[in-house]
């Protein structure tokens, strides 16, 4: 992981809750669309290399949280720290350059661009930091090499999901914000996506913040979790609870 050289100094200022491995720390985050406040003070943290799930029913603000973390929605209060730096007021494009890879709900591939061109746009986030590693991408997602010159809008849902993940990963982010990857995708492919993300996490060390409602995906991927309700984190699930289908199901159906 790339840590700023003065991290030790920052750690001194912010006290013991910031450890060397904390990648993302969110405190008292409020925000929403227009005048409507959806997030009511969210606190969470993500360590380097971790896979953490945010679970909760529809409409509790999970996607709003993701969009606020990327900077596409501005926060009205609270702080977002990325590798120690306060990015709460930074525009989305600057945050992407700092290593946030966003894979939105609905995938949002550029439909009229080819697969290759979609990945080219993804390269922007890594410019000046890293060189794009197409070998790695093609090893994980061979279909994208095969379909390099096909328009992204003509891919199947599962292939578009792979492209969205690859597009974020080509910029070599330190963390992925993965919003409902299972939405609108066949159950057989959900397992592939789960495996792909876990393998990417293991081989590149990319941390993953996952928003999801699909029980199988949560249980198979996450190492710990947060439960969100009405714009707040109301509980956290440890490593033992997150792999228990019964415990997770209870929170999904409250």
């Amino acid at each position: 992981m790339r840590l700023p050289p003065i991290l030790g100094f920052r750690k001194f200022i912010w006290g013991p809750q910031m450890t060397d491995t904390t990648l993302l720390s969110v405190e008292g985050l409020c925000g929403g669309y227009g005048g409507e406040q959806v997030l009511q003070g969210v606190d969470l943290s993500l360590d380097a290399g971790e896979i953490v799930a945010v679970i909760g029913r529809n409409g509790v603000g999970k996607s709003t949280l993701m969009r606020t973390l990327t900077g596409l929605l501005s926060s009205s209060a609270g702080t977002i720290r990325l590798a120690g730096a306060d990015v709460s007021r930074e525009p989305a494009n600057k945050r992407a350059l700092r290593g946030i890879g966003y894979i939105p709900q609905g995938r949002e591939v550029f439909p009229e661009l080819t697969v290759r061109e979609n990945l080219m746009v993804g390269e922007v986030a890594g410019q000046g930091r890293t060189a794009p590693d197409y070998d790695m991408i093609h090893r994980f997602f061979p279909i994208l090499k095969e379909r390099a010159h096909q328009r992204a809008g003509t891919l199947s849902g599962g292939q578009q999901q792979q492209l969205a993940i690859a597009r974020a990963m080509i910029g070599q982010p330190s963390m992925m914000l993965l919003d409902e990857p299972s939405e609108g995708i066949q159950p057989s492919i959900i397992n592939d996506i789960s495996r792909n993300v876990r393998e990417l996490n293991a081989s590149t060390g990319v941390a993953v913040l996952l928003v999801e409602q699909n029980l199988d995906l949560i249980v198979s991927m996450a190492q710990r979790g947060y439960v969100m309700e009405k714009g707040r984190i109301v509980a956290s699930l440890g490593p033992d609870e997150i792999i228990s289908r019964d415990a997770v199901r209870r929170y999904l159906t409250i």
Partner: protein
Amino acid sequence: MEFFPASFSIFYQFGNAFAFLVISCAGLAVIFGMMGIINLAHGEFIMCGAYVTASTARAGLPLPLAILCGTLTAALVGMVLERTIIRHLYHRPLDSIIATWGISLIATQAVLILLGPTMSGTGTPLGSMEVGERSYSIYRLALFASAVGLLGGLYLLFYRTRFGVIARATIQRPEMARALGVDTRRVYGLTFGLGAGLAGLAGGLYAPTMTMVPTMGATFIVESFVTVVVGGADIFVGAAPAAAILAVIKAALTAWYGQLFGQIGLLVAVIVVIRVMPGGLSAFIKRWQR
């Protein structure tokens, strides 16, 4: 009349109309297609390019360099206006129409006050050539070649360069582009500059054929808007075939019934097209592809 001179005459008429439509609409089409902004100051960017081209050419610069000067000046003016005015109106399409119209009025009046009602131009270069009994301006043929080159150049820019790919991504999903690290404001600024520069290029290319008056931009406005409307939102799919179809209509009607009917035919064609294909040719062609 023999076959070759007759067909050359038809080609010349078509090429002339096609070149005018393509060259005059390119800047408008880029700004509308990429940014959704209806730039009513398009004609004044053309005028800017023409004035700079004519004055630098008279000052002794070779014509191609003078045209380059006109293009770059218009692009620069465009980028300054984007940064100071247009940028604040991206989500207010009606206001942006009013603002660009205001820019247009101010530019026309300012040039009238500062430079007077007319400025001496530069002569049409390259002379003429004889085919059959008629003579044809070689410069008009060069304009046709420029139009084809312009279409090719824009295609290469938007489909074969990194900037082009990022610009197209930005029109399709601006928020997603931003979340991936694209500085979309910079993309919009450069795109507006490109559109203004293309308008300047139109002015520069046609400067040797026209009288320099502050309202000269209006000559281009009807043709450029007609082409953009018929072409639809996707300029690459739409503008070239739109210009080709309209050029056939205009050239044929002008040849048989005269200039006035050529203009009327153009306008009738627009009405028919937007009645039959509300999204313009590009939307129609894209639906066909699926």
